[in-house]
């Protein structure tokens, strides 16, 4: 009891006292040694936030530069914040409506670039861009074309059925499918540890990714899951997580990766008392011409700011609104080609 009571203020003190010592991307963390759990694993416990405005891919505006000077970084951050901001009135009525999810909803951490002033979250390939796509097989091409048609109907405000909506809109999965990428809000992840397990609970949706780190084998390859099947191991102070066994549903994996050949390796390294480096490598020889890797800093959330339940399906009024709206539009003679684009949005 006493240990726990003392531990809590200690965490607070650590958060307050920390200097900004997060190492540069790609550099091995120096001097910092992660605390250990009583059973000897590196301690990653806490609530972490991965929000940033630094884009996944390097924008053309910064040329080949991978890290910016202080002045360049300030300008880059302002430019990104302007583009992400939805509290502006420069796009006409339709744009206004589609910016209804404005700063009231946005995680303010989402408007800041990474502390190391990189121009892309991707660190490999060196150009900071997702590698070229491999031409899909005819079967996969058919699946992607069908999915694109559904997305176009939804974007036009004319979904024929709930199946035209994306899996996140349908609340089947959201940002809990790896890789974990920053989004407009709810960029929180709580890590729990117990002997033999590391458990990551993404805020959105309320799933828990319970990762065995005891060396057991993966599920048989015929048992697929929406979030795949995950195994972890420790390499020094880094938690290395491999995930396979993804379901075949089109539109769950990033960029339409092929569930039959896709694997993701994630590395979690505590590099300061208030920072984890989250690095992931995407490998899929039938989707990308080479593997690629991104690094996203996770920053510790003040313990006073608790993670809260994110319910989604339970009050998913949007599905009915989208569908009844579409039926009215049909009656008025609208079609996907006649309708104004960007009539719908992903967030909820």
């Amino acid at each position, binding site marked *: *009891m006493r*240990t*726990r*009571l003392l*531990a*809590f203020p200690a965490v607070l003190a650590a958060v307050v006292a920390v200097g900004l010592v997060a190492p540069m991307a790609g550099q091995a963390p120096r001097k910092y040694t992660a605390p250990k*759990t*009583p*059973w000897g694993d590196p*301690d990653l*416990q*806490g609530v972490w936030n991965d929000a940033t405005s630094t884009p996944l891919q390097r924008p053309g505006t910064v040329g080949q530069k991978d890290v910016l000077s202080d002045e360049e970084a300030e300008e880059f951050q302002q430019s990104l914040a302007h583009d992400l901001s939805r509290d502006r009135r420069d796009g006409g009525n339709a744009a206004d409506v589609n910016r209804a999810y404005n700063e009231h909803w946005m995680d303010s951490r989402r408007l800041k670039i990474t502390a190391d002033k990189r121009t892309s979250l991707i660190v490999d390939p060196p150009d900071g861009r997702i590698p070229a796509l491999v031409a899909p097989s005819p079967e996969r091409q058919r699946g992607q074309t069908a999915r694109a048609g559904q997305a176009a109907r939804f974007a036009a405000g004319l979904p*024929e*059925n*709930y199946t035209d909506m994306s899996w996140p809109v*349908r*609340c*089947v*999965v959201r940002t809990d499918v790896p890789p974990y990428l920053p989004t407009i809000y709810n960029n929180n992840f*709580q890590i*729990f*540890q*117990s*002997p033999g*397990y590391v*458990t990551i*609970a993404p805020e959105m*949706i*309320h*799933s*828990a990714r*319970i990762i*065995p780190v005891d060396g*057991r*084998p993966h*599920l048989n390859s015929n*048992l697929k*899951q*929406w*979030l795949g099947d995950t195994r972890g191991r420790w390499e020094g102070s880094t938690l290395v997580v491999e995930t396979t066994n993804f379901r075949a549903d089109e539109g769950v994996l990033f960029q339409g990766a092929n569930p039959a050949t896709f694997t993701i390796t994630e590395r979690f390294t505590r590099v300061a008392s208030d920072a984890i480096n989250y690095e992931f490598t995407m490998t899929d020889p039938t989707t990308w011409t080479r593997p690629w890797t991104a690094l996203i800093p996770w920053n510790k959330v003040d313990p006073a700011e*608790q*993670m*809260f*339940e994110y*319910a989604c*399906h*339970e*009050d998913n*009024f949007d*599905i*009915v609104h989208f*569908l*009844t709206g*579409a*039926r009215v539009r*049909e009656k008025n003679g609208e079609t996907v080609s006649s309708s104004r684009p960007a009539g719908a949005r992903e967030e909820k």
Partner: protein
Amino acid sequence: MLRRTIAFLGLAAVVAFLWLTVPPLFGQQRGAATPSFPATYRAPRAPDGHPDLNGIWQAFVTANWDLQDHEAQPGPHPELTGAYGAGPAGQSIVEGGEIPYKPEALARKKANFENRLKVDVSDDKTWHALGDPEMKCYMPGVPRATYMPFPFHIVQGTSPYILIAYEFTSATRIIRMDWKQSAPVDSWMGWSRGRWEGETLVVDVTGQREETWFDRAGNYHSDALHVVERYTPMSPYHMMYEATIEDPNVFTRPWKISFPLYRRMERNLQLLEFKCVPFTEELLFGKFRKQAAR
């Protein structure tokens, strides 16, 4: 020393309490052989120094069909599915057998049961009026999550949190240990604050959404629901689970349920996904689709 004495007295009280109350709840006849759990069982310690509840657990009662005594029953559409979907018989897990409803609340419970298979989500305001939330794949709330026919995983580390991850719809709840702050707003799985009383994890649950039910029989509560759960290890493979349920809007007095939880022992067992949203979308949303041209 004083602390230890108090803890011992507390433990003795718990044991005496269980001794007096638990056997009849199993449905055992008085005088029959009762489960021979050692009355003084002391669980192995977790890294936090408290009884180790880590692992995958499951209830094997049929309370999800009805907390109270119930006979076997056909499924909703026996003409389509035969014995598939039929409900098993079971004995009440409610202390004393009956839930102490206020008269008007009992009428509502019966209406819930009559309407348990109906759904109408055409109006946001009456979105939750009809149908068992389980059928709609909504997070089940507490205590229902504990006795649904699905396993759950307790993650007990060293932080001031214990996580319970449930297989049903991948619901989770965080138990905040020795926590002062009360529920900031209502949620489906509620606001859980825990404390140890000797060998027992006591969890105080408030802030639950009023829309969850206790079972498929329509037993329900209001947003004034207050649940106090007690998890007490009884052997390496069993825990006793008790929940005291209080809701002055619906019941005339607090009442109690109890049943054992069993540790799942299969080698390499893990929680799998029961993501049931796709199983319920046609029921909820199918009627809003584009109709074929006539």
